[in-house]
């Protein structure tokens, strides 16, 4: 009973400390509003708004028709370009695709001389290069068929394909990005807030002071965890309700309470990680540097920013040990696919197990660091 009271009381102290740092609150506000809204509103997923330049040396009806066929939302309206500018605009990255229709293209086509169209792709634009080239190819194929009087040919293909996306019918990139941005913020906050709060006590001598009080390491640690957990879960909930659902009108399919529960579980694991890192570092500057190579991979390699399946096998295994990987997968499942407990329990179990391991290790290290 006393123990619970201690944990409660110490946690309240953490909250008071947070409240007094107005700059910190400003960053929190930014993280859960602007940093969610901006990428979601201006988001691009796959081939979207790709920049195209069109070098038209033919100036025929056909070449104009081909240029007009490249349309939003996949492509920006093609910008006319002189041939000698081609290398320059590609070099500068001004355009990702430059199409070159040679002189006499239309005439050669009609004469059956199989003229060539050149599509230059900036292959360093990884997310668009490959897919965009495919799109352009298919669009041109269709236009040429139409032009050469085989307009029906496309319609008369032996079989047709319809693709339907489930859970996000129009593949709105912003929906996903908004949620991933929240997940990323949770990761940053959980690790940084708890870790630095612990080091702050060490640097100000208050940790020594706590040690002459009748408190155990477990109580000190749990107090830090619950208080930071509360702040972040609250911010997450408000951000989802007000920014994601309210401002961005993302129709979240799943259960909010299940998601918040999962968030709390994730916070348990990641705040323990923060404490663990804080016991490895001897000063706040050390912690700051140690946190980067832990947090940034969690942001980039958990499946939220780049696909997990295309990573090398060993790295996929490593990332299975990161709580963020399971949290990203749980977030997508719960919020977009409306998956219930019966579906998500394996990830949930993994997250809980990782959390417990992190917590146990952090507690052992914390105890040891207190004793020395």
């Amino acid at each position, binding site marked *: 009973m006393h123990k619970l009271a201690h944990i409660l009381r110490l946690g309240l102290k953490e909250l008071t400390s947070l409240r007094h740092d107005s700059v910190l609150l400003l960053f929190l506000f930014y993280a859960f509003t602007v940093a969610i809204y901006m990428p979601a509103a201006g988001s691009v997923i796959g081939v979207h708004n790709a920049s195209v330049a069109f070098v038209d040396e033919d100036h025929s009806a056909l070449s104009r028709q081909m240029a007009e066929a490249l349309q939003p939302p996949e492509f920006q309206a093609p910008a006319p370009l002189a041939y000698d500018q081609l290398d320059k605009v590609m070099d500068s990255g001004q355009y990702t695709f430059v199409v070159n229709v040679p002189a006499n293209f239309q005439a050669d086509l009609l004469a059956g001389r199989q003229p060539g169209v050149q599509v230059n792709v900036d292959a360093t634009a990884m997310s668009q290069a490959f897919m965009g080239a495919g799109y352009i190819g298919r669009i041109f194929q269709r236009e040429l068929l139409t032009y050469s009087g085989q307009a029906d040919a496309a319609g008369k293909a032996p079989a047709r394909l319809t693709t339907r996306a489930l859970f996000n019918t129009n593949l709105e990139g912003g929906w996903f990005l908004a949620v991933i941005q929240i997940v990323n913020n949770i990761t940053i906050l959980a690790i940084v807030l708890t870790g630095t709060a612990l080091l702050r006590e060490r640097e100000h001598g208050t940790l020594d002071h706590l040690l002459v009080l009748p*408190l155990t390491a477990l109580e000190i640690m749990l107090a830090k965890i619950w208080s930071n957990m509360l702040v972040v879960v609250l911010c997450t909930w408000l951000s989802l309700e007000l920014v994601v659902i309210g401002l961005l009108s993302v129709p979240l399919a799943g259960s909010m309470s299940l998601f918040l529960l999962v968030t709390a579980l994730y916070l348990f694991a990641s705040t323990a990680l923060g404490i663990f890192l804080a016991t490895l570092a001897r000063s706040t500057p050390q912690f700051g540097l140690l946190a980067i190579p832990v947090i940034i991979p969690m942001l980039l390699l958990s499946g939220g920013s780049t696909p997990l399946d295309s990573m090398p096998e060993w790295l996929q295994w490593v990332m299975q040990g990161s709580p963020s990987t399971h949290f990203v997968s749980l977030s997508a499942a719960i919020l977009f696919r409306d998956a219930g407990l019966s579906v998500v329990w394996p990830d949930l179990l993994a997250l809980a197990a990782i959390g417990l391991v992190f917590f146990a290790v952090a507690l052992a290290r914390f105890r040891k660091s207190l004793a020395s």
Partner: protein
Amino acid sequence: MSGLALHATGINHRYGKQQALLDIAFSLPAGTRCGLIGPDGAGKSSLLGLIAGVKKLQDGQLQVLGGSIQDRRHRNSLYPRIAFMPQGLGGNLYPELSISENIRFFATLFGLSKADCDQRMHNLLLATDLARFAERPAGKLSGGMKQKLGLCCALIHDPDLLILDEPTTGVDPLSRRRFWELVDSVRSERPQLTLLVATAYMEEAEQFEHCLMLDRGKLIADGLSRELAAITPSGKLDEAFTHFQGDSAQDNQPLVIPPRTGGNTDIAIQAHDLTLRFGDFTAVNKVSFAIGRGEIFGFLGSNGCGKTTTMKVLTGLMPATEGSAILLGKPVDAKDLATRKRVGFMSQSFSLYGELSVRQNLVLHAQLFDLPKADSGPRIDELIQRFDLGGVAEQPSGELPLGLRQRLSLAVAVLHRPEVLILDEPTSGVDPAARDDFWRLLIELSREQGVTIFLSTHFMNEAQRCDRISLMHAGKVLACDTPEALQRQFHGDTLEAAFVTCLEQAQSEAEPAAPGATVNDTHAPPVSKRGFSLARWLAVASREGKELLRDRVRMAFALLGAMFMMVIFGYGISLDVENLAFAVYDQDQTPQSRAYLEAFRSSRYFAEQAPIRDANELHRRLQRSEIKLALEIPPGFGRDLYAGRQPIVAAWIDGGMPFRAETSRNYVEAVHQGNLQQLAELSSLPRSTQAAVKLETRFRYNQDVVSVNAIGPGVMALILAFIPAMLTALGIVREKELGSITNFYATPLTRLEFLLGKQAPYLAVSLVNLALLVAMNRWLFGVPFKGSGLTLAFGGLLYVLATTSMGLLISAFTRTQIAAILGTMIITSLPTIQFSGLIVPRSSLEGAAALMGMLFPAGHFLDIAVGTFTKALDLRQLWPQCLALFGFFVGFTGLSLVMLKKQEA
């Protein structure tokens, strides 16, 4: 000796609603010595801060050394003429740096030549008895030694005005005596030197010819000490002070100590041959003593002699190397929570929660010590009243003056009515009246409740009140007895004299006596350059560099962290989708449907899972994310195909992760398209003609579309955004949080020197990082390098200049290290990861996202890195990006200059 050193009229100062100074007016002739006395929280430090130019004057007129302090030009000319030592135990020192390095740093800031600095430092260290420790890091010094080092740093240059804020708090009597001899010798060489000292020692104030008395922000008396003291019959300043305070002060009852009632012979604290070593250094050397229950036991000794360490061993904060310690009948055990409840401990430095108010701190501790609710409320009120904290009960304790903070710490230590009190210099920095009050409480606890009290002190009148005292020096107990017996043993008229004799004896045994404390003033007056000074810049840069070099862990994290991220991102970030898990819901099961599906099955992009049996299963498996794609072949597919009825194949994609869904759709469509020719052979439809046009797709810069060729150089931009910014982000805010920022306020250091000096070492580390990352890209990942290496180096330099200055800007803006780390992470991550062009080309961003990408350095360097690596570009094409990066550096530095104030608000 013409003119006034100080002339103040109508000075008011407030912190929020709190009035700190009210209508202060006085003047002080040049060349005089003036003491500033008053109770804790009277406004002494505020006044000194204003005079030193460290705090910004809010209201009134203040002339310092012949000009207004509000005039910026005059203030700039004042820095080298004023020496300021702030209050607190060495808060303005650099803990990683040794004693001599700390002093050298200050010497360079004030423009001393190396020879002058060496000579002066030598004399100062001898005078303060610090010479033996010259190479010890300041962080490992005891409280009193830090205080002495602070004095040395303040005295290293020749000021015309020396402002000392409680300089001898926590300094032992012998050092205190030497210290004043030192100041006198400086004064004898510089007759124009004006000395202004806030002190809690009345005997110190009495030496000075002038005296200012402050009470509750008001100047209650000002004049010659002699005349002020003559007001009262005793001729003592402290009584004069009480007189000027008027009716508001309660009269000082003399302190009476009832004798200890005999018969109680229990031992509460016992140490036997207690020894503690740090490496080769023996901090505590075979210390033994026994303290009886209810006894007041005093611990005296020179600074750094091991008093604090001994106390920490007794509380279990540090394990002893050898020997035993017994507390309340049990061996000291850090895990024994029950004993902790019976002990009250107060450490030398303030270690309560500064952001909590006085009352909140007390309430917190009442709960942590499990005081019953009914009891804790009245108990807290009682202590607030007892320690006269009523006026500040609701204020954040961190903002209180030292004396009031000490009182709060004391209140916390006695809150839970412990049986044993271990107090490390509990009254240092507390005003005399409050000290007496506190002693009344201690005597009451000891005599009426049998509480055992073990305390250390530098005040001789307090030592006199102890039942027994122990004299400690260099880790050993020299003598232990009643004050009277010790006085007899060392033939002193007073206890102080006895103590000094004892210490001198001990020191002369250990080493030759220190020569007389003089500071030879043979050097030319230092030239303090106005405007940008390379020497000062270098001083800041090399100090910061030393701290970084000594912190090997930080260096390792910076370099290894970058390499680690390069490796995992080089291998891990790939936007290709391969082995997409898919399953087939084939309702036709004919050779035709199998022929159609074969194209998917044989593609490396798809990996087939167990077939789907019904529509429910299709949905469920997509929901579980077992498969990302389901292909549904309608019944009668083969028949319809043959009949030319154009059967429709449905591809169901998991849209939860839109990027992958988009890629999947693209692949499915491509495979379908490629399949049509073959399907046509199974159909009765006329075959479409052969393609009339050749489509040549040229993947430029990266012919094989190898992920790492594009990602690798981009990842450099990512890593060099985070690590350099994080390195500098704590630079300024850490000094703000730990107190050394005062040096920036009080020295000739300009804002630009400070900023660029802080940046230099981190810039160097970041350049090493850049070189490492380029090498890893080239040789580990084999990314071909086609462009200009010089351009990459130049662009890289500009980039790390920009990102390190961004870190500094965050540091200048924030108030706590937590906020600085969080801010760096949050501000850097979004534009670097999402809008820099690493994943999505910047040319397809629009609106706010495009703007954000442009207004952050990462995207520009990404262009340079990718351009020089893969596109064979050089400065001719990349100059706009370089210019932009330079612009960021200038812009961030400019903003930091605006954010960074040369004075405290």
